[in-house]
């Protein structure tokens, strides 16, 4: 079992919107554990994630989850989309949304069976929203909505969860809850690949990193791949001064 296939493996993946390539010839194996995809705005991070899941069409390339095509292992792959991708005025409660994660395991008609409802409640409790299960999702704060999405991804009970900007525009309590969930997932042998925008927290939250700007600039354990030189290359001249300062602070603290 030492040669277990990686949770996510991408070969020569190219995606283009119109004539501009968003992801160019990416070949990459996600290592076990927690991995961040990092890069400047418009670097194709979310596009890469969506392309692996078949949500945007790839021009070429091959994607494997645990060594197999997605269609064969869908129950092992979870997804946390960006919060802004849905209409939060939808008539549903937090519990309704989380329970949607269980549809593939249910018969497709009739009410939601009790054990799936319980699984959804557990997931909500894990992100600290047990009390808000019955609240309409439009009445939750932005951070709470993000945690509802996180709970839905947890309720999928997947071995690998792909997260699209889980920390985007969240409050401190939500960020803490997400970090705790990431650590719990890693502790139970699950894997996470997350698009991440905050360079300063990469070393604290993640074990491995993929530096992406349309193509791969560096990949590997944070200690090796997340070097100042590689980051500067990835971002070109676009790294804001503030981020640079944060980064040197984080490196000093971590190393």
């Amino acid at each position, binding site marked *: 079992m030492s040669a277990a296939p990686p949770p996510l493996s991408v070969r020569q993946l190219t995606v283009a919107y119109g004539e501009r390539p968003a992801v160019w010839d990416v070949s990459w194996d996600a290592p076990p554990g927690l991995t961040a995809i990092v890069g400047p705005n418009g670097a194709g991070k979310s596009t890469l994630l*969506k392309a692996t*899941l*078949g*949500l945007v069409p790839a021009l070429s390339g091959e994607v494997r989850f645990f060594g197999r095509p997605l*269609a064969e292992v*869908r129950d092992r*792959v979870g*997804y946390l*989309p960006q919060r802004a*991708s*849905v*209409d939060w005025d*939808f*008539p*549903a*409660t937090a519990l*309704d*949304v989380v329970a*949607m*994660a269980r*549809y*593939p395991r*249910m018969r*497709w*008609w009739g009410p939601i069976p009790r054990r799936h409802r319980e699984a959804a409640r557990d997931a909500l409790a894990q992100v600290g929203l047990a009390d808000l299960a019955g609240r*309409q999702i*439009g009445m939750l704060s932005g951070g709470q909505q993000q945690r509802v999405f996180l709970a*839905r991804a947890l309720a*999928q009970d997947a071995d690998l969860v792909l997260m699209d900007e889980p920390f985007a525009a969240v409050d401190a309590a939500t960020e803490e809850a997400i970090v705790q969930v990431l650590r719990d997932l890693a502790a139970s042998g699950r894997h996470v690949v997350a698009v991440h925008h905050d360079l300063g927290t990469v070393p604290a939250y993640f074990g491995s990193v993929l530096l992406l700007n349309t193509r791969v600039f560096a990949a590997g354990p944070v200690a090796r791949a997340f070097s100042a030189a590689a980051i500067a290359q990835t971002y070109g001249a676009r790294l804001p001064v503030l981020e640079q300062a944060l980064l040197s602070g984080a490196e000093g603290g971590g190393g």
Partner: protein
Amino acid sequence: MLIPYNTLVVLLGCALLGVAAGTVGTFALLRGRALVADAIGHAALPGVALAALVVGAVGADPRSLPPLLAGAALAGLLGVLAVQALSRTGRIREDAAIAVVLSAFYAAGVALLSWLQTRPGAAQAGLSKFILGQAAAMRAEDAIIAAAVAGACLLVVLLAFQALRAASFDPDFARVQGLAVGRVDLLLLGLLVVVCVAGLQAVGLILVVALLVLPAATARLLTHRLPRMLAIAAAVGAVAGAGGAMASAWRPEVPTGAAVVLAAAAMFSLALLFSPGRGLLARGAIRLRRRLSADTDHFLRAAWEAQEAAGAGPGTAGDRWASIESVAATRGWTPGRARRLARWLALRGLVACAQGHVHLTPLGATAARRAVRAHRVVEHHLLAAGAADIASADRLADLVEHGLPAEMAARLLPEPSALPDSPHALGKGTP
């Protein structure tokens, strides 16, 4: 009064049609397909005309409904496919594509109908009723066809409920889970076509979209739960459908479609005004209450601080009289507004009013102390967090302090605590 058999059947048929339209319309609304329903309705007209032409040519019964409905369904489907093809070219957006297809198909239908009317024969006589709907002209067997179609739609919606909900809320997530979202969308489209076509004779092709959208929109105003929304939309649709058919039975010159839609629109308007959660009146009441509560805090704080500025210590500031004018000047209110507020606060027992001055009652002093502390704590907090200057901290605190969530207020304002000093000078010059 005994209702004739034919009328009764038509009535029930229209009610069932309303139920189907309400439930299918709910998902059309949630999936953002309301305008597509409009396109289907209008696109059906040339189908009806062509079908009538063919029926007339082969010499079949010109009043027979199924061929006309089949023609309508085909044309409606063609219209939707045209919309999708147009928007997929990327040259125009979907709303423009819908407008183009809707008007082009409808124009073709009108032209065909006018031409048909110049031809001899009876086939064309009743066709214009498809445009505005005329339930009174329906025969019992027509109503039974419409009812059966509507019933089948209802059944399909209930069976596919989970899939429709998943695809409507978050299609990408559903796709990752392995749900064939494309097929679910196609199913919804098919249901829309079928409901539109089933409603052609009763409601007419121009207004059938309203029967799909209005009950669903009404229901959305009344509930946050999808199952309840489906039930309410079905009920509203049934009442509108039956009501419209009844109006058409009593006064055959009233177009059924108009009656049905007006009934649904009336229910929608009522819900929009009076819904307890999302209605305009409820929203207005909440806004008014918030504004009053903010004004109350501001008035009490201004009265308190006017006394502090006049030399009263923090412990005694509640004991003196403050002039309403100085409160108005501090807040930048007109004197009239300050006087009205003072009267309102006196009614609530927070102040006593006399000769243009106010005196805080014990109740009012407690509330004033709380308001002053909340404001100053938030001010100090904003200054510590790097607010540019004291004036902007004061202004920001005014905006923030009333909307603090309970848990944050508890963290910022532990009870009991001493009254902090104001970070800025008090008196008339304060913004």
